[in-house]
């Protein structure tokens, strides 16, 4: 009964669609280079990215599900998931808070050295991770500039009892390294949105009698939400896979401060390819899911921008 009703509009639209397809086809042909760039792009993408990624999944399925599952869920590996995902989540939350404050300061306030601060926010993108790793370790080791303040006898150690607080070579050290590499993701996704935001909305809120905090909470923050979430997801994704800046400061104690990428390396060093591949497959599936979420968030953010 409903069938004619649903088919009728489709039939009406058919010529329009055909017409549109024809016009887009014509437009495509104006500019040259479609076939060669499509061919080269797909060829290079397959060669460098898709085939090697497929290798991980094909290899990990080649030894049967039992072997895969046993390797991917051994106690030491599970402990590494907990550390990698847990520390990455906490680091992303801390960066969410301080990243928003830093972006706010850079966009809204004038202060000496602002240009320098703005430029150096990108340092974690540009500084090789191994360099960041040894620098953070030197700072936060018990004899380092910051670490010695918290070591027994240090100025701030009394806050943490007699033993003081050990930062480097503990999960806390892992967290610090992940905060370092994640910070620019939040600042650089929030900053442009904050810069483009018109002041009219805040003026309207103020003229209606809203306090500054109320305006921030109900007017500014909702506008920033998509950018904050995108930055959070990007920082989280990067932190989970991070290796270079973490291994120096982590201490790599089994069951305590081993991150998941390190587990892959240690399996490889023992020639345990099944184990290494299984953990890698778990990490890849996780990154694909996160990538889909990030894409969704970015689509949401740009839709928001367009509606405005």
């Amino acid at each position: 009964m409903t069938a004619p009703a649903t088919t009728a509009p489709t039939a009406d639209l058919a010529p329009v669609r055909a017409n549109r397809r024809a016009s887009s086809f014509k437009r495509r042909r104006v500019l040259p280079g479609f076939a060669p760039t499509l061919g080269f792009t797909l060829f290079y993408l397959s060669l460098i990215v898709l085939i090697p990624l497929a290798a991980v999944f094909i290899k990990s399925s080649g030894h049967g599900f039992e072997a895969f599952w046993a390797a991917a869920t051994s106690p030491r590996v599970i402990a590494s998931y907990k550390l990698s995902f847990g520390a990455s989540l906490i680091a992303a939350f801390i960066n969410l808070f301080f990243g928003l404050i830093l972006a706010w300061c850079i966009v809204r306030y004038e202060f000496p050295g602002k240009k320098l601060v703005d430029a150096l926010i990108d340092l974690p993108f540009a500084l090789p991770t191994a360099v960041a790793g040894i620098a953070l370790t030197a700072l936060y080791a018990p004899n380092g500039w910051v670490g010695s303040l918290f070591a027994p006898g240090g100025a701030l150690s009394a806050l943490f009892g007699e033993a003081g607080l050990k930062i480097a070579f503990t999960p806390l050290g892992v967290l610090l390294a992940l905060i370092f590499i994640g910070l620019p993701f939040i600042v650089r996704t929030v900053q442009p949105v904050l810069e483009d935001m018109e002041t009219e909305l805040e003026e309207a809120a103020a003229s209606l009698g809203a306090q500054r905090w109320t305006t921030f909470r109900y007017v500014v923050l909702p506008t920033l939400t998509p950018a904050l979430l995108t930055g959070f997801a990007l920082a989280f994704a990067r932190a989970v896979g991070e290796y270079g800046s973490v291994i120096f400061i982590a201490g790599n104690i089994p069951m305590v401060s081993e991150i998941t990428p390190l587990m892959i390396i240690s399996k490889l060093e023992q020639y345990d390819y099944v184990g290494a591949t299984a953990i890698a497959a778990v990490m890849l599936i996780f990154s694909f899911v996160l990538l889909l979420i990030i894409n969704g968030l970015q689509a949401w953010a740009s839709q928001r921008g367009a509606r405005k």
Partner: protein
Amino acid sequence: MSTALHLAPARARAKYQDNPATRESTGVRFTLLALGLGFFGLFLLLPLVAVFTEALRKGWELYFSSLADADTVSAIKLTLIAAIVAVPLNLVFGVSAAWLIAKHEFRGKQILITLIDLPFSVSPVVAGLMYVLIFGANGWFGPWLQAHDVKIIFAVPGIVLATVFVTFPFVARELIPLMQAQGKDEEEAATVLGASGWQTFRRVTLPNIKWGLLYGVILCNARAMGEFGAVSVVSGHIRGLTNTLPLQVEILYNEYQFAAAFAVASLLALLALVTLVIKQFIEWRASQSKEE
């Protein structure tokens, strides 16, 4: 994407601080500045200062002798080789992919953009592992490569491949949104007036995208020279042969040669600073040409 080039905004003071509706009280402002700048100092500035302080702790003489060490010099060479191969390859790919995506309509475009982004979300260690699974002794082509005496893993080609993978999206990622925003009217006009495809690209497109292109290239180069995790998996750490600069830093550090490790690290930190200075210059030039 968070790395995208962005242009400097109007001065904050006139726009926000002289407007009662967008101004916070002095106390709030100082608290936020103290929190933000304190965090910045502790997490970004201090590590950078530490690299150079530790590098020079034992004096300039040891600093320069660490850099002149034969293994370090060969690490510098290998790092340059990896960058010299990876950057042009990904530059050609980036331009080709951006021309395809920004100037043509086709199905599956969004999927293609997502696939190009993939290497950003893959852990560098997994990236290295992929090539071990393909070219390693137990890999798909392992036996064939051994029979023909070709070494890829634990040799220079593996390092180059891993570097190409981790720097894969940089140029494309920078150019695609830029060229999409510019549209294709200018190129279509040039083509209709009889310019060839290559002429259109060189005379019309290239001048429009040169700053974005340069920015993508310097980011790609910084990552190529600084990559650690992926290269570490495929390198085998053979001194003087398959060590790049970041791997040399690791070896020296694990041997407790801290001053030498930080001396080599300071070279890489200088590279990072130069990258950031060029970025600032590009943003300044791009905002100038926008005003014109």
